């Protein structure tokens, strides 16, 4: 009887020890509370003249955002800013980020980063070197970070902007890049796309451009063209759109075309682009860009009525010509000025003509620059909106 009781006691003891162990094993080893980290919303990286890296972070203060949202704090108390911006120099990005802790209180957490802004100086020197850190680090979320190149302004100055539109400036910048879906005038590059394309010699990187517009706003328009990881030049908003048409990245945009008496804004609602390389006798003979798009009449500043199908066919033609012009402009820039295959013709060659690719791989950008490009745009205009023509006074 006694023996049985002992066994029972031993079982209870084991159970107790096991539950204690269970309690000790709850959290993660390197678990950090939200209040113990600094949440980085935006990163800026620039290269200084002496080869060092200047890293700027924008850190959000969750408590301050809450009070901003619930009506400008209590009377008399000075309003805490929702974000702070700090910069630090270092030999590498990681070095700068860690050394920055000498002026920043809590450890910087990169998993919340939304925007990465690359400086012009850095871009001219080459971005591949600093991108290494962002790939290697386990905190980065490749697919949520928007990458932009700052033009005529340092990333530091850009991140210091305090806008009224969003308590977190980084989110404001990100959203201006995001809304390219309705205007197609800035190239939106997510970090993962950049990482994927970096090792690809058949397609050069294009990254959206951001500039400062006044004291409180930014302007995300245009794009930066790279060649082998180095900034080669810029595309203006229209050339950027030409690029996006050719690569099929246009979701929606407004294309203005001249009309009989006035002008028409065509709203592109669907667009597909495809690039190809035509080979003759084992050599590339012609590069082709094919765009198929669908548009509506969005606005007509003129007097004629649009009432016959022929009117729309004429619009289709003009629209096609207009888009073609934009693409042609981009192609000329890429071939003559920057000598950089941003359209990915090289990838096509690599995939379908691997033997030839092996020969030209290293000098592909020069080969690309010399090839003729054929552009075909097939535009379709389907609807005219709620009305057929302009308001006219009777008589």
């Amino acid at each position, binding site marked *: 009887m006694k023996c049985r009781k002992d066994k029972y006691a031993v079982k209870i003891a084991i159970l107790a020890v096991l539950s204690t162990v269970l309690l000790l*094993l709850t959290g*993660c*080893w*390197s678990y950090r509370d939200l209040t113990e980290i600094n949440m980085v919303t935006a990163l800026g990286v620039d290269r200084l003249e002496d080869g060092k890296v200047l890293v700027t972070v924008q850190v959000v203060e969750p408590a301050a955002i809450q009070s901003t949202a619930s009506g400008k704090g209590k009377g008399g108390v000075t309003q805490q800013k929702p974000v702070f911006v700090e910069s630090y120099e270092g030999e590498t990005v990681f070095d700068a980020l860690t050394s920055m802790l000498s002026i920043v209180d809590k450890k910087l957490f990169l998993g919340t980063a939304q925007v990465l802004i690359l400086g012009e100086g850095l871009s001219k020197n080459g971005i591949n070197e600093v991108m290494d850190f962002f*790939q290697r680090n*386990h905190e980065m*979320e*490749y*697919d949520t970070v928007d990458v932009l190149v700052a033009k005529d302004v340092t990333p530091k100055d850009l991140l210091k902007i305090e806008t009224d539109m969003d308590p977190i400036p980084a989110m404001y910048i990100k959203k201006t890049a995001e809304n390219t879906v309705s205007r197609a005038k800035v190239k939106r590059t997510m970090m*993962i796309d950049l*990482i*994927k394309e970096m*090792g*690809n010699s058949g397609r050069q990187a294009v990254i959206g451009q951001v500039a400062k517009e006044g004291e409180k706003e930014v302007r995300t328009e245009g794009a930066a063209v790279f060649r082998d990881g180095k900034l080669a030049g810029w595309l203006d908003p229209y050339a950027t759109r030409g690029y996006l048409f050719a690569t099929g990245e246009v979701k929606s945009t407004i294309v203005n075309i001249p009309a009989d008496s006035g002008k028409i804004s065509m709203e592109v609602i669907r667009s597909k682009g495809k690039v190809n390389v035509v080979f003759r006798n084992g050599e590339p003979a012609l590069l082709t860009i094919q765009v198929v798009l669908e548009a509506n009449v969005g606005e007509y500043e003129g007097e004629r009525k649009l009432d016959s199908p022929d009117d729309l066919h004429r619009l289709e033609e003009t629209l096609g010509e207009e888009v073609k012009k934009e693409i042609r402009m981009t192609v000329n820039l890429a071939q003559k000025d920057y000598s950089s295959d941003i359209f990915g013709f090289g990838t096509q060659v*690599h*995939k*379908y*003509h*691997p033997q030839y*690719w092996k020969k030209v791989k290293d000098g592909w950008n020069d080969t690309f620059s010399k090839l003729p490009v054929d552009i075909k745009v097939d535009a379709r205009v389907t609807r005219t909106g709620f009305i057929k023509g302009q308001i006219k006074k009777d008589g």
Partner: protein
Amino acid sequence: MEKARISSIQLFLLIIGFLYGSTVIINPALSAKNDAWLAILLGGVGGALLIGVYASIALLNPSKTLVEILMDRFGKLIGNAVSILYIWYFIHIASLVFRNFGEFITTMTFPETPMAVVIGIFAVLLVYGINSGIEVMGRTSELFVPFIPVTALIISLSLITTRDFTAFLPMLENGMALVLNAAFSFITFPFGETIAFLMLFPHLNKKENLKKVAALSVLFIVVLCLFIFIRNISVLGSDLMYRAIFTPHLTSLLIPGLNVEPLIDINLLIGGGTKISVCIYAAAKALSQVLGISDYRKLTTAITTFCVVLSIWVYENVLEMFSWAEKVWPYYSIPFQMVIPLILLFLSLKKRAEPSKSRE
């Protein structure tokens, strides 16, 4: 001989878990870059042949484990010596899988946790599982292994929008030699390692199903690996896929607005757990038979402890682990996976032919 029995479906799932094991993080076929799909197919054919050999050995020597077969065919002295080599080999596989697992967790999920802690806690759990017996291992696999294809499917479906289905072009860019090399690596790791199952086959309740089960599980794994490869390359592109350390994990990171990387960790826990359990069970069972100990359970804790220590000591760094898996392992494995089993098969066939003659 314990009377434990496992059903065909349990064995099927155990083999799948075993084969999938650490292949989820180190797939040697990937060294063929764009042409890994070809390497997977070729490796799958070779792997099926190899497992066919093992199954034939088991069928020719019914109800006998690898150690008993070795003793019968090679005689006591050589049989014992070869058995001990096999015990070492099983222990080695188990430690390598432990290490893969620890390396993955410390790289991806808990970078500041010492690897010994990660591996140690996992090992405690596995010892418990192995000591519960082969039947429990079978039932556990029944419960968990189906998660593997399901998670693979979930991740693939979530990424269906971000794909480039021509990413595997151009074909054979780096030549056939690389593909053959990768295919050979893929045969030895994971298919050849199923030699450990020769310690388990006697427990199968319906012997006539053995070959069917083996063939089906190989087919299943080849299809699964192909599926995962196509997903990874179409999402990441060949360049990034080759650069990434743990490819499936990186793929799962890219699902927009959703963090499913724990699913990959779970896959690894299930697959790796199955593989380690089978290997340690095989080692403990074999050692107990060589030494004449009635119950293998007395040895599991010791062997597992040894595996944990070995796993931490065996590689200096993560890149050594990868280059070992791709470059050294295949050749190191040849005698264990091919030479000795083929001799065994030959001797078993001869043996079967002899008694029928003598009876006449």
